């Protein structure tokens, strides 16, 4: 069952309303849980009172509950129907004239009734396998989350989830841990990461502090704002660990198709910063080669030396190596070696392979990191090496030899930073003077065709991409255009026409067109930059530099008005260089 709850039919305000109700329901459930917990605790205490009796010799005739000694003729006590213990007449509760139970058995039954277990038992007859917790709420929440591509506020869901986390755990243990929850958890972590990031650059605080009822208010008061994000991250990561380490959910995950999800959950943890950090020391030895015939990139991991201890105090280290072919951080791009036990000088001798076109390698970076695998999925980062493959000469034999590389602390890789060469396909339609080229009333038309090989920034799927066009005129005025969003396509085909009106050819000579591709975030404030390309006059180029192709292309366009020119542009990932 994918997601039973397709809640797309709800309007945004309606979703808010439903969420609000779910939230209130969650409060009721919390109270109820707490009440049941207390009831069970009391029952436990009642049991213990009697349990002390077990240490006494049983022959010594005494009541199993109050431990009053029982007589041989008078006040002999009687055996309880439920627990078969002999109890005195005072420790009995009469259910009807011919049936009684000892206090503990009665309390046990009473707790069951008061906890509403009769209901769950009855329901389980009709719906076997239904967890008694608030599966419904969680399923609805998934529905809300999944259909939420609008401006729905993350904060609401985050608050809700931190509240409902115990239920998610419960869900993780139930057998029908379904795809939607998986997605929910994944996208949740992605968003939390995003939020944490924006918290770091102090940019977008509103996301987390969006008012949601009193709860958030209270939370705001209790914690400092920057604290909040971190706190939530760690709480959710803990949850993730719990889910993956629970045996039942593992079993679900391990069936072929879902295998990847397990891994992605894992790495979401390690990627989101919830892992131990050791002082990075040591080196790693590996070799890289590309087999041209088979289009396979091979990374031979030989071993490491002088690694830091994953757990310094215990002098424990179980290292393994994990490799990503960045910018793809999805499970597809992940390769791992086996874990070596108790060593800081492990020898792996493993070859990790990627099937990849040679032309793509230039845009990739190999991230080779070393990790310590502790107990209960606890991970400690031991160091990494990042190798930009653009600079790698795969044809040179000497580059294929094994080499030692110094391990480095985690580098803050901005998504798609310094990664270039995303192919951008477009047909450019230039300058159609209205019959008379001298007249200032001209148009620049740009047909955006499509893009391919867009970087995968999210772990949970394809980008919802759109294109922004920004024409910068000589007086620094900016004319902006935007394409519609294409949802979940790796190779989007917008076929969208940008029309820039009222520009003259002389103006265009001095102008520059910035085209940027974005991943539309579900939350309008933080669209992710996927790449950008320029056409036209460069503002500050030293005369020594060769004329870049973008300038030549631009001039070509201007030279031939009223004709369509077809270009494929390379997308660059340095966001700062583009106006949008």
């Amino acid at each position, binding site marked *: 069952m994918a997601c*039973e*709850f*397709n*809640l797309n*039919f*709800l309007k945004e*305000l*309606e979703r808010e*309303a*439903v969420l609000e*109700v779910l939230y*209130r*329901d969650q*409060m*009721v459930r*919390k*109270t*109820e849980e*707490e*009440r049941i917990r*207390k009831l069970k605790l009391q029952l436990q205490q009642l049991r213990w009172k009697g349990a002390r009796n077990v240490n006494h010799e049983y022959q010594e005739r005494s009541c199993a509950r109050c431990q009053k000694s029982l007589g041989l003729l008078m006040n002999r006590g009687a055996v309880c129907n*439920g627990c078969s213990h002999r109890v005195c007449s005072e420790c009995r509760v009469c*259910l*009807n*004239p*011919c*049936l009684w*139970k000892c206090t503990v058995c009665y309390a046990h*039954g009473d707790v*069951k*009734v*008061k906890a*509403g277990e*009769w*209901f769950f*038992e*009855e*329901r389980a*007859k*009709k*719906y076997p396998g*239904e967890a008694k917790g608030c599966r*419904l709420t969680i*399923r*609805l929440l998934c529905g809300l989350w999944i259909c939420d591509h609008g401006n729905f506020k993350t904060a609401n869901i985050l608050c809700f989830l931190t509240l409902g986390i115990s239920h998610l755990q419960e869900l993780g243990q139930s057998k029908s841990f379904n795809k939607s929850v998986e997605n929910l958890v994944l996208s949740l972590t992605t968003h939390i990461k995003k939020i944490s990031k924006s918290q770091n650059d102090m940019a977008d605080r509103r996301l987390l502090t969006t008012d949601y009822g009193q709860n958030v208010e209270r939370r705001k008061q209790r914690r400092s704002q920057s604290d909040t994000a971190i706190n939530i991250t760690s709480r959710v990561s803990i949850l993730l660990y719990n889910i993956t380490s629970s045996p039942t959910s593992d079993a679900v995950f391990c069936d072929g198709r879902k295998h990847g999800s397990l891994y992605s959950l894992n790495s979401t943890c390690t990627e989101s910063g919830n892992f131990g950090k050791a002082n990075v020391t040591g080196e790693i030895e590996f070799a890289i080669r590309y087999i041209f015939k088979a289009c396979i990139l091979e990374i031979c991991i030989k071993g490491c030396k002088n690694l830091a201890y994953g757990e310094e105090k215990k002098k424990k280290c179980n290292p393994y190596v994990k490799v990503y072919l960045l910018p793809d951080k999805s499970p597809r791009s992940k390769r791992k070696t086996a874990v070596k036990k108790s060593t800081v000088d492990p020898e792996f001798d493993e070859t990790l392979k990627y099937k990849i076109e040679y032309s793509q390698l230039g845009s990739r970076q190999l991230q080779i990191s070393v990790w310590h695998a502790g107990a209960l999925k606890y991970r400690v980062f031991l160091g990494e090496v990042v190798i930009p493959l653009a600079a790698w000469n795969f044809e040179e034999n000497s580059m294929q030899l094994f080499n030692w590389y110094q391990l480095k602390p985690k580098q803050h890789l901005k998504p798609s930073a310094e990664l270039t060469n995303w192919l951008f396909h477009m047909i450019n339609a230039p300058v159609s003077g209205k019959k008379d080229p001298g007249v200032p009333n001209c148009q620049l038309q740009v047909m955006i065709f499509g893009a391919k090989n867009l970087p995968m920034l999210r772990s949970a799927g394809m980008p919802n991409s759109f294109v922004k066009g920004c024409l910068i005129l000589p007086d620094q005025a900016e004319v902006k255009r935007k394409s519609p969003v294409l949802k979940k396509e790796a190779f989007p085909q917008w076929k969208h026409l940008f029309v820039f009106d009222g520009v003259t050819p002389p103006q265009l000579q001095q102008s520059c067109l910035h085209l940027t591709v974005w991943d539309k975030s579900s939350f309008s404030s933080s669209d992710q930059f996927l790449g950008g390309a320029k056409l036209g006059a460069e503002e500050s180029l030293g005369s020594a530099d060769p004329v870049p192709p973008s300038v030549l292309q631009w001039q070509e366009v201007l030279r031939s008005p009223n004709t369509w020119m077809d270009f494929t542009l390379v997308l660059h990932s340095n966001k700062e260089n583009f106006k949008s």
Partner: protein
Amino acid sequence: MTDGDYDYLIKLLALGDSGVGKTTFLYRYTDNKFNPKFITTVGIDFREKRVVYNSRGPNGSPGKAFKVHLQLWDTAGQERFRSLTTAFFRDAMGFLLMFDLTSQQSFLNVRNWMSQLQANAYCENPDIVLIGNKADLSDQREVNERQAKDLADKYGIPYFETSAATGQNVEKAVDMLLDLIMKRMEQCVDKTQVSDTANGGSSGKLDSAKPEEKKCAC
């Protein structure tokens, strides 16, 4: 009202066509107020109320008094919310199936609602009370009492004619449902706890259910 000082949490759910007065009915029950304005419910909602339930011993002797926390779910009658609302049926322990005494159509649809319940409730024959609302609008009445009573008998469920406007029978209907649930609960427990004493349990009867506190959730 979020303290856990109660003995039972009982979840009821009101269902029926759009506009029969589910929301006003519950509002009358929890707050003892009437809102004549029609505001369509968005998907789902709930109200809370705490009542005292007096159980009776087997020979009619007064038993213990229990504090019951009622969670009264309100559902949208509109078709477009159907997939959402029916999902909540599964979590409810008893149902207030409502129709509008001034609308023949809403009465005819009771059958559909019954089959919805059979399909989606926690068991095949859950506790239901049939409620004909808007009894105060006698001049506009389209459903006569006999008709409704017959249908209720056919399903073997109690029937009440209520008015959220005047408050007539509102408490009575809910109390009856609560009583049914408490009895069923005792039976379920008896079956498991008291292995072979068939009618061992005490039968409860609701004392006019003086609410301990009257507050609504919102």
